[in-house]
């Protein structure tokens, strides 16, 4: 599905990612964990085309995407959410989710301006899909609210609805539960599990270890831009290098 080989990225002279390599299988949830500043968001930005890796290759279904601009990667079926919400405050909740269907909508200015029956039909179908996605995330009642008037937790869910509405091949979730309380976190966890059961492939950046251990099929650990461990959650959890990265160097305490 997604294959990264020796992906590296520097900001100036500072290495943000060094030779990161791992593979993702279709239908699996891969969690990307690591301390702050480990390069997790940078990696997601590189995969989604928001940023560009300087060396190494990123392949989506054997198709190299590392050099493509963001909108082309989106057209190949990669959707994402952002760590700091990037909702369109002035649009309604429904319109926000509809922007997630940009790739499925007609792109021609002329066709849009004429609004012939075929386009009306397509637009109606897209609206139904968007409403369905909102319903999935429990927000159907607020479809016509301005996005700015939602609570933080609701906004996070709108972003997820926007990412999943197009039924993408790969969804990148950048800290979906950051800043949420326990109840909201449990809710998001339920949504993620449901999307996994529906067969979605996800890359999840998250600090919440409980959530990670709960939903992930595979865990990739980054530390200072290096991939220090990769494997099943229960294996990674007991890896001494991971413990060291998270808890500091273990002194011999015996």
């Amino acid at each position: 599905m997604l294959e990264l080989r020796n992906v590296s990225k520097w900001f100036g002279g500072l290495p943000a990612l060094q030779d990161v390599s791992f593979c993702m299988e279709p239908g699996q949830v891969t969690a990307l964990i690591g301390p702050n500043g480990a390069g997790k968001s940078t990696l997601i930005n590189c995969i989604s085309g928001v940023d560009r890796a300087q060396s190494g290759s990123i392949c989506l279904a054997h198709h190299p995407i590392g050099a493509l601009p963001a909108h082309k990667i989106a057209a190949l079926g990669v959707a994402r959410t952002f760590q700091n919400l990037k909702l369109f405050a002035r649009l309604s909740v429904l319109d926000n989710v509809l922007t997630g269907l940009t790739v499925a909508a007609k792109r021609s200015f002329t066709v849009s301006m004429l609004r012939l029956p075929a386009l009306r039909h397509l637009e109606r179908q897209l609206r139904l899909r968007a409403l369905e996605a909102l319903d999935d995330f429990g927000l159907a009642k607020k479809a016509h609210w301005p996005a700015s008037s939602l609570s933080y937790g609701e906004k996070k869910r709108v972003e997820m609805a926007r990412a999943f509405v197009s039924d993408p091949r790969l969804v990148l979730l950048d800290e979906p539960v950051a800043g949420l309380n326990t109840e909201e976190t449990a809710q998001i966890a339920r949504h993620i599990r449901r999307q996994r059961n529906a067969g979605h492939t996800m890359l999840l950046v998250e600090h919440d270890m409980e959530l990670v251990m709960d939903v992930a099929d595979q865990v990739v650990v980054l530390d200072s831009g290096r991939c220090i461990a990769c494997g099943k959650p229960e294996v990674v959890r007991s890896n001494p290098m991971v413990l060291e990265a998270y808890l500091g160097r273990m002194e011999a305490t015996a």
Partner: protein
Amino acid sequence: MMTARDNLLYFLYLHRTGLTVLALSVLLLVWPLLESNPYNLGLSNLIAIYAIVVLGLNLFIGYAGQISLGHAAFFAIGAYGSAIGTTTLGGPAWPVMIVVALAVSLVALALGLPALKLSGHYLAMATLGFNIVVYSILVQWDKVTGGPSGFSGIPYLSIGSVVFDNEIAFHYLVWTVAMIALLLCLNLVRSGVGRGLAALAEDETAAAALGVDTRRAKVKVFILSAVLASVAGSLFAHCYAFVSPDSFNIFVSVDFVIMVVVGGMGSIWGTLFGTALITLLPEWIEALESYKDIIHGLILVLILLFLPQGLVTGIVDAVRTRIALSRHHA
């Protein structure tokens, strides 16, 4: 079960945009029968011409989130293009209008490709510079443009035996074009393209990650708005049979931006209101005539300080939020 009343309400809701356009069209059809003063008709015609420019500009500023202080230049190229094409070169008016609009689209493409890599202040400066260049050409190249004293003797437009040579005939001509432009813009913003533009205005990174080709979309909207300005310019030239550089200086560009801001960012209906208000304001208050630019500047500053989304949009957004929240608490 849906009752007949529910059906009617649903029909009205489903076709609200089309029905509003229809109602406005009917109003405009009967307007010359109610208003016989040619001066007032002349004013409403000017509103229609400006509205065509401002509709396009609102797509560019309000939807795509860019800035242009040079749309009077495209308006000028349309007007002078039609004037020179029909009078000096003796071409037929309608085809000349189309050729000029195509030429303007090429100019907009040539200007937009490099300029739209810029944003904010830089884009404002680039478009302002373009306006100044075009204005200087109009003033200096007097053999072709007539220089500061203007260009006269432009023929009236006609369709068959109908000649558009009086205010009532102009009224039907310019408002027909304005309503078509309004409908096209309303359609555009209600489509995936329009949502992509709105996304682009709020967050370019997010829009790109959703599949919006941001650079291409910006250039396309820029071209569309330039073509609308050009068509409006052609109509302007043919309606008044005379054009002079003063109708196209940078203050006119600024006025267009103020019309967008009063109407509200990304509000197509607000555009009509903003255009009408700013066009009529100096007429209502005579004292404003000489201090027009100061007053307009003041309006711009006040609105941007207190309602950055624009006057109409700002109020509508606030009301919508209020309604949503009050329903929630009820």
